[in-house]
């Protein structure tokens, strides 16, 4: 009934049909009562619509607080006035009152789940709210907000992508994958969905699927340097070094002013023990980003290999400053210090590397130590 009321209030055509329908159903006996109800409803509608229009005008002129106050008064008088709720949601959204906006839009969506403006508003408000939560370091709340919105607007590709990305960043891979797969199903050619899905699959180590989706994305956006880098990185992880190099070089051709593809080429060369090529690649990285912790580490490793421990120390000392969480840098620094006879510092670095490894293991494996149920 509330759903049909929404239609009645929003459209004269629907109002007419609805009234006819009611008359037909109830027969002559109830007609008087029905006519009375309709008259009341039309009066309320007329009165509310007028005010909603006024509020909209206020909002358009930038007087958001007044508009909001006016709309709040309307919905307080008439909680079934969905047009007012919807307008209130828009105003709250403009005021960055995202949680309030979501509540307003959800009131509309409860009555009319397929309302496009309310659905769009809910998605915008939820994403804005989640972004703010995320920026404030409250990832759980961000995810909960997106999940709530997903309950009201289950087929929004934009929302599914936002949810998937948030879940992925929290290492809730299965839920991220489900949401992004749904987004991809709804819009198979949506490049954002493809890219995000590939990212999650990469995190889930579903390498084949990630590679296929990245390649599909690149068919749509062949000149996306970042995606070529991403594919190159993935192929490197799969030890498909020649294919990886092709993608990374393509990324560089598209975007010569970058560091990451050069860095990745350096890593490939380092693994292949092609030290000259690795050095050339790291040098390019450091030319534009002298504090690049990865490239400094790479140069340190190369120097260590060449038994030039003084040079290794110089690079790695910087690397651990600019990339303090990079275990590789700490470990090679410890090894270098040991070679230089600085045993105490070496052990300190090694302990730090072990501590970092343990922390990263905890994060990666998600294990906790606690009593059983």
């Amino acid at each position, binding site marked *: 009934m509330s759903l049909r009321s929404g239609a009645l209030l929003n459209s004269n055509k629907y109002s007419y049909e609805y009234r006819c329908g009611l008359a037909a159903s109830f027969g002559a006996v109830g007609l008087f009562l029905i006519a009375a109800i309709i008259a009341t409803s039309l009066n309320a509608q007329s009165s509310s619509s007028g005010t909603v229009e006024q509020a909209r005008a206020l909002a358009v002129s930038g007087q958001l607080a007044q508009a909001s106050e006016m709309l709040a008064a309307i919905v307080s008088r008439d909680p079934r006035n969905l047009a007012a709720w919807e307008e209130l949601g828009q105003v709250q959204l403009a005021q960055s009152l995202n949680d309030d906006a979501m509540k307003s839009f959800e009131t509309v969506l409860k009555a009319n789940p397929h309302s496009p403006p309310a659905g769009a508003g809910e998605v915008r408000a939820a994403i804005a709210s989640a972004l703010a939560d995320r920026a404030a370091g409250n990832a759980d709340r961000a995810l909960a907000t997106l999940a709530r919105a997903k309950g009201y607007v289950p087929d929004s590709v934009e929302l599914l992508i936002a949810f998937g990305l948030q879940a992925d960043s929290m290492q809730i*891979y*299965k839920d991220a994958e489900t949401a992004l797969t749904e987004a991809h199903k709804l819009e198979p050619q949506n490049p954002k969905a493809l890219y995000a899905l590939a990212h999650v699959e990469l995190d*889930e*180590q*579903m*390498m*084949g699927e990630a590679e296929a989706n990245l390649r599909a994305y690149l068919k749509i956006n062949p000149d996306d340097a970042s995606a070529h880098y991403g594919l190159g990185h993935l192929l490197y*992880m*799969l*030890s*498909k070094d020649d294919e990886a190099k092709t993608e990374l070089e393509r990324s560089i051709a598209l975007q010569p002013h970058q560091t990451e593809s050069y860095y990745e080429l350096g890593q490939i060369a*380092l*693994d*292949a*023990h092609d030290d000259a090529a690795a050095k050339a690649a790291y040098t390019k990285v450091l030319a534009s980003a002298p504090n690049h912790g990865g490239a400094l580490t790479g140069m340190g490793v190369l120097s260590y290999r060449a038994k030039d421990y003084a040079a290794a120390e110089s690079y790695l000392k910087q690397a651990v400053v600019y990339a303090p969480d990079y*275990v*590789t*840098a*700490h*470990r*090679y620094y*410890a*090894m270098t210090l*040991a*070679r230089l006879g600085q045993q105490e510092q070496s052990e300190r670095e*090694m302990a730090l*590397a*072990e501590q970092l*490894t*343990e922390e990263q*293991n*905890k994060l990666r*494996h*998600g*294990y*906790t*130590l*606690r*009593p*059983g*149920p």
Partner: protein
Amino acid sequence: MGSGVALFDYDNDGRLDVFLVNGAPLSDPTPSGTIPRKTGPLYWNRLYHQKKDGTFEDVTEKAGLQGTNYDMGVAVGDYDNDGFEDLYVTGYGGNHLYHNNGNGTFTDVTKESGTTGGGWSTSAAWVDLDNDGLLDLVVLRYVKWDFEDLWCGEKRPGYRSYCHPDVFPATTPLAYHNDGNGHFTEISAKLGLDKPGKGLGIALADFDRDGRIDLAVANDSMVEFLYHQKSNGSFEEQGLMAQIAVDGDGRTYAGMGIDAQDYNDDGLPDLVITNLANQKYALYRNTGDGSFDYATHVSGVGGITMLHSGWGTKFFDYNNDGLKDLIIAQGHDIDNIELTYPQLRYKEPLLLMRNMGRGKFADASVSSGDVFKEAWAGRGLAVGDLDNDGREDFVVTTNDGPAYVIHNETRSGNHWVTLDLVGHKSNRDAIGAEIKVTTSRGAQWWTVSTAGSYLSSSDKRAHFGLGSDDHAKSIEILWPSGIRQQLGEVKGDQMLRVDEPAK
């Protein structure tokens, strides 16, 4: 964690027999401090005697090898040089030394030998640490652990998981010196072999060619160890300096199985250490200057093993082409891994990596028979030529499943020679001896050992593929005693017993 397997000829009839290790029942929950005991035949360790026709008979009871505890590993060595191979069985809450009486029976001599150990023992190695002609015993232990009701993994039903090793403290290995009178003395601290680790696999070789045996230890989720033996007979852990402590990125990994042999035929023993999916099995090429190169990527091993989890592993030449290949028993450690990582598998097929020469390996599993398509929770693995046909076979143990005997039916047309070294001044098993076999292709080296792999013990005989040559141009043996022996030209396709000369 699984259990081990040993391939050895306990009755000296010339045919390898099989010993399989088993656990014991556990209650849920198990009270802290419990030492689980075997309750009946279901949990017995098993000795299978190979009959003349190549079939096996269960002789466990007759041999007296049923066991008592929650056992895990096994190491084979003739510690009293009486010509009969003895057994050391490791496990949780105490180990057992079984003396081979030479009449098909064994006697549990644990107490009088002083080798009970304690804690959670895993792989063990018989090796003559001080070259006195008597095999000593090094026993790894995993972590300090008890039956406490810890919960790891998610709380959702079905998502409980084994705890990460980081949760538990490391513990020291044990080193038993063979006193020569049936008694052993624990001297790990004296020898410097007492660095706390989370040891699962042990391999031995003289890595720096200084004439003294060194030890390599696969530790789980911490740095790997290389114990270098110094001139005074004590050891110094040098994994970091030798560059085998971590992978090429300087990261630790879940070291489980290990083996040491010279895969690139440069006369220097190399190392392989298996680990978990996404870590890539670590292949370390010995550079000869006391350090190793992380050769996982350049060898192709990284690409092949990216998504695999490996346990027991051995270098062996399955096709007799003169190049040492790699066999690995596989399967993830977490039995519900598919729930969190759908692309990974708890049960995995065996992996056979063929040595293509020039330091490269290729996955030869698919073309090597249907058995390489079967998924198991593989753990222990031991190599040996079960039917003495000149082709190395192997046996694999699985978690909650049967053991598998894999018969090598490779048709290559290549020739081979298998050497059964008998030490006299050296330990009788010749463990630690280095053999150099030269063919028209060049030289290849082998260090005699029953250790390596994971919880397991392989045939002590040294097997060499000769390729298309029907003979070895020369064979040179450096015995643990330091005695060098030249054999000259040796006909191929034969098992050859070689006795250590007096000088």
